[in-house]
């Protein structure tokens, strides 16, 4: 079909794209890993310095002349651009500072200036860290116990809480000068490799038979060779760099420890337990990472584990880039991209017309939909709404929690069944019962009324019709609230009617069944007019001669109904039933306003339950998973329904 030249050209192009994606992507990702490594090393080095300094400040009593003397001595041994500030929260006091700006009138000790935004930031940071440490101790949500940020100059600013006798009294903040920028080799070697591979393909493609699959295989093999070759050399180098970084960190920790010991001795503060350098290489929660031993030596097992993890990450990046390249090769090589591009060009007028609609749908429908599904794979809740979703990723945990809990009921202490109304399957079961009964009720009642209204010669027909459509025309919030009032135990009209009949009043919302009946009555009231209107329209379009012919043949009225009326109604009724099922399944207002889930959440339907998870319990991720499950159920239902009705229509 395709001539050899087109094929060759297409695959050469495809390979070029694939190499750009695969090799280029892998190169960029590995460079990113290396940058991450440098950043991590800088942060961890900084953390060791800051935590050691925090300990020194603590040993100096956290205030007064001893602290200032100690910091001044410490400052002497530091590179230019290093600055330390110690703040006491009570009285908003700048206790000590080696910052260049804090001289003269601003020299420590002084009260933090109310008019200075920088001072407020400093003070608030201290408050925040104190709140975090106290909250974490209390067992609240986990909060960062130290802070790190990059300064505009490229330097690092690290802050740690200053603790005395187990209570946070202030903060130690240290600014470190920027590190020298790294020397990164350009991508020349990789570019050369790509050129060689492309040349090899061009040559080999002339010798191979010009078939799609052989060219494709050759291109794929060359792509894999390229990505693999890059990986072999770069992953090894990354590993070496990682080892070097760990040695550097260990050396730094040892040095800091020796320096700290010298300082303490010089200031006459050496009392107390010996210093432990391992407690300075900490994560954001101030938990030691276990890489550095007490005297600064490397802990080999942890070091190997960290390197293994880095290698795993790098390999993952390579595989991802390789797959992306293969995808590109497949798309271009198979001609899909070409055909798509041609369609765009040929039908550009049509695409121009639908572009606004496509854009609107993408923004208003697809984006929220995809965002919701992404949310369902996270542990997003009120505590972490600020964090990016990728940090909260928990895979299928929410779905497993929802779908794998089969504890609908258990035996109570007295042997009676106790239902767990919060269980997904209970709510699902209730929703199905709710939907089926409602639709049955609505269709039956609507159809009967339509038949009555369709009677020939009925007086005042327009008036009846208007009256019967009224329930539909009222806002359903109002109807729901009126019905809820009618079922009130003491003052409701329903119980008053029961009382007139000599019956005991019923607490309608106290048992699941009676509570369900109130919602059923309300929704039935609201849904029959729709079915009635649909049926009435369809009834009026049935030709009268069909009935005439039937009467001539001697058919009874029931036979006429089953053989003529019902089949003629089907084309109108089936879509109405499908719609009504979907509406009722998600009939939020009625359940929420009438029963509110009473008693004990037994009359919740899936959609109200999802609402409660999202907006009463603030478990956004879990609620999103719940909503996605509901979507799945309706999708399956819609498909089956569609297939069944089509099959019958074909007959």
């Amino acid at each position, binding site marked *: 079909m395709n001539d050899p030249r087109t094929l060759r050209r297409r695959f050469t192009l495809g390979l070029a794209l694939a190499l750009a994606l695969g090799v280029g992507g892998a190169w960029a990702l590995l460079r990113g890993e290396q940058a991450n490594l440098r950043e991590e090393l800088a942060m961890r080095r900084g953390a060791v310095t800051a935590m050691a300094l925090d300990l020194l400040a603590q040993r100096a009593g956290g205030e007064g002349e001893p602290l200032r003397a100690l910091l001044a001595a410490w400052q002497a041994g530091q590179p230019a651009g290093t600055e330390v500030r110690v703040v006491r929260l009570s009285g908003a006091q700048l206790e000590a500072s080696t910052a260049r700006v804090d001289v003269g009138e601003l020299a420590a000790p002084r009260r933090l200036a*109310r008019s200075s935004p920088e001072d407020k930031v400093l003070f608030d940071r201290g408050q*925040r860290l104190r*709140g975090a440490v*106290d909250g974490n101790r209390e*067992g609240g949500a986990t909060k960062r116990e130290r802070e790190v940020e990059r300064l505009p100059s490229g330097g690092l600013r690290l802050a740690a809480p200053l603790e005395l006798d187990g209570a946070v009294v202030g903060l130690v903040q240290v600014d470190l000068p920027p590190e020298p920028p790294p020397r990164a080799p350009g991508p020349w070697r990789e570019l050369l490799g790509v050129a060689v591979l492309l040349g090899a393909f061009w040559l080999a493609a002339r010798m191979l038979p010009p078939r799609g699959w052989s060219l494709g295989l050759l291109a794929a093999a060359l792509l894999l060779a390229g990505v693999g070759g890059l990986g072999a050399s770069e992953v090894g180098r990354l590993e070496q760099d990682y080892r070097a970084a760990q040695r550097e960190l260990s050396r730094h920790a040892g040095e800091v420890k020796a320096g700290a010991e010298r300082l303490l001795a010089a200031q006459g503060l050496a009392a107390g337990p010996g210093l432990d350098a391992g407690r300075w290489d900490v994560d954001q929660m101030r938990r030691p990472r276990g890489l550095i031993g007490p005297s600064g030596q490397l802990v080999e097992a942890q070091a190997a584990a960290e390197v293994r993890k880095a290698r795993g990450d790098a390999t993952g990046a390579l595989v991802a880039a390789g797959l992306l390249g293969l995808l590109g090769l497949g798309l271009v090589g198979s001609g899909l991209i070409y055909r798509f591009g041609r369609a765009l060009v040929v039908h550009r007028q049509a695409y121009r017309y639908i572009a606004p609609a496509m854009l609107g749908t993408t923004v208003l429908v697809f984006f929220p939909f995809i965002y919701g599904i992404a949310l369902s794979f996270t542990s997003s809740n009120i505590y972490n*709404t600020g964090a990016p979703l990728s940090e909260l*990723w928990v895979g299928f945990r929410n779905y497993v929690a929802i779908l794998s809990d089969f504890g609908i009921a258990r035996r109570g202490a007295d042997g009676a069944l106790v239902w767990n109304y919060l269980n997904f399957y209970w709510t699902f079961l209730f929703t199905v019962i709710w939907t089926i009964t409602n639709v049955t009720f609505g269709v039956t009642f609507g159809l009967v009324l339509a038949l009555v209204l369709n009677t020939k010669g009925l007086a005042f027909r327009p008036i009846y019709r208007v009256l019967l459509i009224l329930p539909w025309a009222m806002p359903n919030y109002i109807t729901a609230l009126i019905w809820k009032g009618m079922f009130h135990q*003491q*003052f409701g009209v329903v119980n008053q009617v029961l009382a007139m009949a000599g019956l005991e009043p019923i607490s309608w919302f106290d048992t699941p069944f009676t509570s369900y009946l109130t919602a059923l009555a309300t929704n039935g009231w609201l849904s029959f007019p729709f079915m009635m209107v649909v049926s009435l329209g369809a009834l009026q379009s049935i030709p009268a001669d069909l009935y005439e012919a039937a009467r001539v043949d001697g058919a009874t009225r029931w036979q006429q109904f089953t053989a003529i009326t019902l089949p003629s109604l089907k084309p109108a009724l089936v879509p109405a039933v499908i719609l009504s099922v979907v509406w009722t399944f998600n009939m939020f207002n009625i359940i929420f306003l009438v029963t509110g889930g009473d008693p004990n959440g037994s009359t919740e339907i899936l959609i109200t339950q999802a609402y409660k998870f999202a907006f009463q319990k603030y*478990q956004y991720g879990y609620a999103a998973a719940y909503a996605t499950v509901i979507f799945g159920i309706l999708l399956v239902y819609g498909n089956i329904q569609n297939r069944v009705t089509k099959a019958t229509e074909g007959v």
Partner: protein
Amino acid sequence: MRKLTLLLLTAALALPAAAAAQGARLVIWHAYRGGEKAAFEKVIAAFNARPGTKVKAEPLAVPFDAFADKVSAAVPRGKGPDVFIYAQDRMGGWIEAGNTVEPIDFFVDDALKKKYIPTTIEALTYRGSLWGLPLDYKVITLIYNKKLIATPPKTTAELYKVGAALTNKPAGKFGLAWAYNDFYYVASLLNGNGGAVFGPGTKPTLNAPANVTGMAQLQGWNKAGFMPAEPSVALITSLFNEGKAAMVFSGPWFLGEIAAGVEYGLAPLPGISEAGGKPMRPWMTVEGVFIAAPSKQKEAAFELVKYLTDVEAAKVLALEGRFTPAVKAVYDDPAVARDAQISAFKKQVEVAVPMPNVPEMTMVWSPATTALNKINAGASPQGALDTAQKAVEKDVAGLRKGK
């Protein structure tokens, strides 16, 4: 056409910049309506008219229903106001979400804190920091129909007596109508017995012995039969207005619903005779004035916050807007002291407890309401509260599990 669009764009971009250059202009969001709004705007006008200041405040009334969600959505993205007013119950959630509420400890010294009723400051304190200054508080108290009762009951023992005397079920008349199916209201009985929902910190304590005792007392009230069944807000209002309920436990929001011609008085909630006469201690909600974290003019914003919560403003808000201010000194003003309603709420707030401001509180409502419904239907308080406690513990753990 393109030129026109460009022109419009430039104008749109340039306008705010031009406005900012004229001195600090603070946008403040509130949810007040009617008389409250008029009084509030008067205070803002007085703030703007102070001599020698360039700081101008611009009030914007945002509908109450949408208020909290608007703050959650707009403020962290820097699109919100500089200052906003809201009750403390959402505060913890905003602080946890971050970049919404600005801590103000830095601006506040102890002398300033002492100017307010201590519990109102406590209500706006979270994780050891103060996040706003209290403007006013809302608390439930006893509201009675003067035609039906001369002196309202001071203890629950008296309540039983008076309640029974005024109840005539076949005629639909009741001694006391209140939302005893709403945990917010019932908490006054639990707190009065020394109960609490959390403590220490955010540890749920729904099934603490004091809470069980309080619920048992509520069952006693139920049995005595001086309260209507399934008391919805609409039902309570209509019973009181028709003279069919002699007493109501409700807050300032109820006063606006009382029909003209009904003569009513306010008194503190009764003491609990079973607990040795200790007072019922209702939950109070405190409206805090908060500075938005992304605001560029925090110093000026604090000036406004301080002004709004100070005595001068409070006097106007109390007398003209029917506020119940949190600043203590306003109650020394003769005109305010003469006002029976405001004094009554002040008396009640002295025994009130701030409603928890931690976001975990949202986990409590649903299980607590379930337990309350069971207890009102006659179930054992201990069992119902144990179940609720388990549910709250599970939800709180689920919230914190995170990753």
